[in-house]
């Protein structure tokens, strides 16, 4: 019988939640790496027992952990992320030049067919990779050095590369997103990159349609349609059907289109999920009601999903990497909150129930579907 394993990164450690295909009863393991911030954990699609975790601390810096047994035991691997060449400067919040400095790993993206090959998105924004299971990391400097890097500025959470998506049909095509620079694409395995922000409109920057400078919060893709991407920007939900060459706003009837997460149903490439957040100055749900919104039409037409979610006095946030889906026949949808709840729906969002209620603030949620 199929199983699911939910990998939860929190402000104070990692938790691993497992259940059978019914997704009613859950075993909870953790905290792993107690007391450390776990920005992200993700398993290899090629070997579900191989999991990587980004473990960070304001005191002790960055550690990367690797498990070969589904998260039961862990070993630290290399934690040195040295920028290639002279990294130069990007812009600081006030527009002055600021040197590139490594701060932490935000996202780890194992490649689709090699458990030893992993991409890492870091702050200050850059993409690294390992091809030896984490024994060493090297930058793909073509991203920072393609020309617009000196214009990039940090968002409120830092200048982080937080999204990495590898095209399942062409592993040389990779999409990434940076707050607050925007989205970028490579078609040659990471040697050369270009901004893909045409169609984005950000009224809070000097040139609202600038080539770079957009605060992209997250991007999602369905593997059967790798040219279609869905984006939750700071404000605005967007989609592209030509690999990012042109974006179109699909916020439609959302009550607010500010938010962080976005994801796609495992079997319906036009069914997408967001969690609307009131505003960029009030990072909590509208009217104290936690609502997931689902569109079955690839955007524009949205329905609130509320059954099982708190509908009063709820003032949590759902951060950008804290939603994921499983691949079971009835698609499971999962998200974690800054209040420490992890909610699950075993019926594509129709009804929800908390798996756990009282974890530390959740930073990331990923799901593995196990045979």
């Amino acid at each position, binding site marked *: 019988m199929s199983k699911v394993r939910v990998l939860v990164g929190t402000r104070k450690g990692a938790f691993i939640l497992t259940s059978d295909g019914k997704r009613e009863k859950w075993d909870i393991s953790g905290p792993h790496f107690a*007391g*450390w911030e776990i920005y992200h954990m993700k398993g290899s699609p090629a070997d579900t027992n191989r999991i990587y975790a980004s473990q960070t*601390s*304001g*005191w*002790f*810096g*960055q*550690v990367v952990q690797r498990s070969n047994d589904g998260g039961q035991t862990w070993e*630290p691997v290399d*934690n*040195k992320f*040295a920028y290639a060449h002279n990294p130069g400067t990007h812009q600081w919040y006030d527009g002055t030049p600021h040197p590139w400095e490594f701060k932490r790993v935000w996202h780890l993206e194992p490649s689709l067919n090699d458990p030893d090959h992993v991409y890492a998105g870091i702050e200050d924004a850059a993409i690294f990779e390992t091809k030896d299971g984490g024994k060493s990391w090297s930058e793909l400097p073509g991203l920072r050095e393609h020309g617009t890097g000196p214009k990039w500025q940090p968002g409120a959470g830092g200048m982080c590369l937080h999204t990495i998506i590898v095209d399942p049909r062409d592993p040389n095509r990779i999409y990434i997103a940076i707050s607050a620079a925007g989205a970028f694409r490579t078609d040659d395995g990471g040697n050369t990159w270009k901004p893909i922000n045409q169609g984005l409109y950000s009224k809070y920057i000097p040139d609202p349609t600038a080539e770079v400078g957009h605060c992209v919060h997250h991007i999602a893709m369905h593997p059967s349609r790798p040219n279609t991407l869905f984006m939750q920007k700071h404000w605005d939900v967007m989609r592209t059907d030509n690999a990012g060459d042109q974006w179109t706003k699909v916020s439609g009837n959302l009550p607010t289109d500010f938010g962080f997460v976005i994801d796609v149903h495992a079997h319906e490439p036009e069914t997408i999920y967001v969690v609307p957040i009131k505003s960029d100055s009030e990072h909590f749900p509208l009217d104290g009601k936690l609502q997931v919104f689902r569109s079955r039409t690839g955007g524009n037409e949205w329905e609130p999903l509320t059954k099982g979610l708190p509908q009063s006095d709820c003032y949590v946030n759902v951060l950008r990497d804290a939603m994921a889906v499983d691949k079971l026949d009835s698609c499971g949808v999962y998200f974690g909150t800054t209040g420490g709840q992890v909610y699950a729906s075993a019926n594509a969002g129709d009804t929800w129930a908390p798996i756990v209620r009282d974890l530390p603030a959740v930073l990331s949620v990923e799901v593995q579907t196990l045979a």
Partner: protein
Amino acid sequence: MNSHRIRVELPQHLRTLAGVRGEVSLEVAAPITLRSVLDALEARYPTLRGTIRDHDTLKRRDFLRFFACEEDISHKSPDEPLPEEVTSAKEPLLIIGAIAGG
């Protein structure tokens, strides 16, 4: 070469990361300085590299402090000799995480 047994006390999170309990005992070749002790510590426990000082610049991480014989030596040259009490293992070298928060 003349070597000394040096006692080092790590903060809890680094003890966990290194997989040790209690104090660490290291054989360190003279001269016994902060730099030589940290070099020996990282050689013995490679997972600690980058967690106490920067990989390349070897600059102390901002929220860590080094104490010897109740004296904060964080801002002294890492090449100054450590006190005799430390080099003779009467006292440990303390690596302390700053207490921050409300």
